[in-house]
């Protein structure tokens, strides 16, 4: 079953800006799906329409088979949204925020209390349940929004840059949590500017640019299209000029650091053979850019 189906979705704002130019997109049930794009590409508009915060100019949205226009309440009850920016009442307690959201979804009080406790414990916030939300750290506020989005056990969880601005420790714990939630059967749509995050978590991907879908495929086949890997090499001895290595582009960044673009057909063994032949000793090596980042830049730049 399709968790989400967008049909020729268009949005033109009142100032004439055409944010979406007829996008078609399908997300399978159980998927962990990345929706990527540069700033202003139309991601937030698309998510806004799916979650009923933005009115579409035309086109259709179907969530688990429920049309958002004609079967609005059923469609909405399938969705949990974690927005980009904090949007809860800063004067409410953590527990109050999550409990109220359960009420909006029509959850009886006893069940709402149980679900609130479960979600706050899952987000490691149960000890802070009576804290007024404005006193929380940025990372905690994001976790409150995730707990709030999860309280009615949505079938489709939309995470709009959930890890923006949080430190790496919290980010990694949030990745684990997202994976757990997905493994339990919840379909997840993730937007993020951390492409490493999308690459490691998501199975399928769509890239949106200037209001159009420019790429929509599974992560593995997309990454396999990357023909060139970029590496940075730390050298043992300084060099005056960049060495010549057949088939590769080599740049001397500093006297002991080389940047190399190496086609997949050459491979690292051949690279190291050539370096050894020139008496160049490599101390360490790392990817210059994340693989998805490279593809993303290529796809967005080519349009």
């Amino acid at each position, binding site marked *: 079953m399709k968790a989400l189906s967008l049909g020729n979705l268009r949005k033109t704002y009142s100032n004439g800006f055409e944010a979406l130019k007829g996008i078609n997109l399908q997300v399978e049930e159980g998927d962990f799906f990345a929706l990527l794009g540069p700033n202003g590409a139309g991601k937030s508009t698309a998510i806004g329409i799916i979650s*009923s915060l*933005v009115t579409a100019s035309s086109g259709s949205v179907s969530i688990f088979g429920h049309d958002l226009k004609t079967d609005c309440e059923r469609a909405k*009850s399938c969705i949990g*949204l974690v*927005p980009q*920016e904090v*949007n809860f*009442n800063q004067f409410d307690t953590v527990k109050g925020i999550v409990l109220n*959201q359960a009420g*909006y979804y029509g959850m009886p009080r006893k069940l709402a209390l149980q679900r609130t406790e479960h979600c706050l414990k899952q987000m490691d916030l149960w000890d802070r349940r009576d804290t007024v939300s404005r006193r929380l750290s940025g990372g905690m506020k994001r976790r409150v929004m995730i707990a709030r989005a999860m309280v009615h056990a949505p079938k489709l969880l939309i995470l709009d840059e959930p890890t923006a601005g949080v430190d790496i420790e919290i980010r990694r714990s949030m990745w684990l949590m997202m994976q757990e939630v997905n493994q339990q059967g919840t379909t997840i749509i993730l937007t993020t500017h951390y492409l490493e995050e999308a690459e490691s978590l998501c199975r399928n991907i769509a890239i949106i640019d200037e209001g159009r879908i420019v790429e929509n495929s599974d992560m593995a086949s997309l990454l396999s299209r990357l023909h060139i890997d970029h590496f940075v090499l730390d050298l043992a001895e300084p060099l005056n000029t960049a060495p010549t290595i057949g088939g590769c582009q080599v740049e001397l960044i500093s006297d002991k650091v080389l940047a190399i673009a190496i086609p997949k057909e050459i491979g690292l063994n051949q690279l190291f053979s050539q370096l050894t032949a020139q008496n160049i000793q490599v101390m360490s090596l790392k990817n210059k850019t994340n693989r998805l980042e490279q593809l993303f830049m290529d796809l967005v730049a080519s349009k």
Partner: protein
Amino acid sequence: MNYSIAFKTIVFKEIYRFLRIWPQTLLPPAITTTLYFLIFGKLIGDRIGTISGASYMDYIVPGIIIMSVISHSYANVVSSFYSTKFQRNIEELLVAPVPNWVILSGYISGGIIRGLLVGAVVALISLLFAEFAVHNIAIALSTALLTATLFSLAGFINALLAESFDDISIIPNFVLTPLSYLGGVFYSVDMLPPIWQTISMGNPILYMVNAFRYGLIGVSDIDIQLTFIMMIGFIITLTLFSLYLLYKGIGIKN
């Protein structure tokens, strides 16, 4: 879908909000109206004599109560709903399967409850200064209820259309307050020159003050039946307009 739970959630959230900030919501009207009763009713009123057979203190009590109902039912909805918009937590309701009529009725109920609660507080304080037998409790209560409903709806529309905090203070300061003071709270419309009597008839608050005064002390300058028709007409019109604004997403959706 069980909408009653969503409705109750909004109403309890609203009640909790104005009770939590009771020094801002319940205490000021108690102090202000005590001063009204003391200065206008007691000190000045003793020298004025009677109006339409009622002592001046008895005459102004209903108007002061209904004025409090008007300002607080309006203020509750306009400030609460605009804050909800401003902090963007209106999105909590918009993403959830809550129909527009539940959102509207939840916020309006919150405004009605605060308006009537403040009215009750003022009425209790008035008992320290005035003694009167209630003339018609049904008319008094229904007038208070319809007035609170009407001004809660007006506050909701103001909040929906407002784009800044200035926009939510313009109507209370420059429309509601003048209309309330010119709505026969402290005087009978018969005391005005004929031209001002005619102009006053265009002030809807005059009708509500007089209907409530009739319910409490049996004195009115206005036809009570006409007042009820007018209030119900306004309520229906404002309800439909609010639902239209919500349906179009005006002020809350892009």
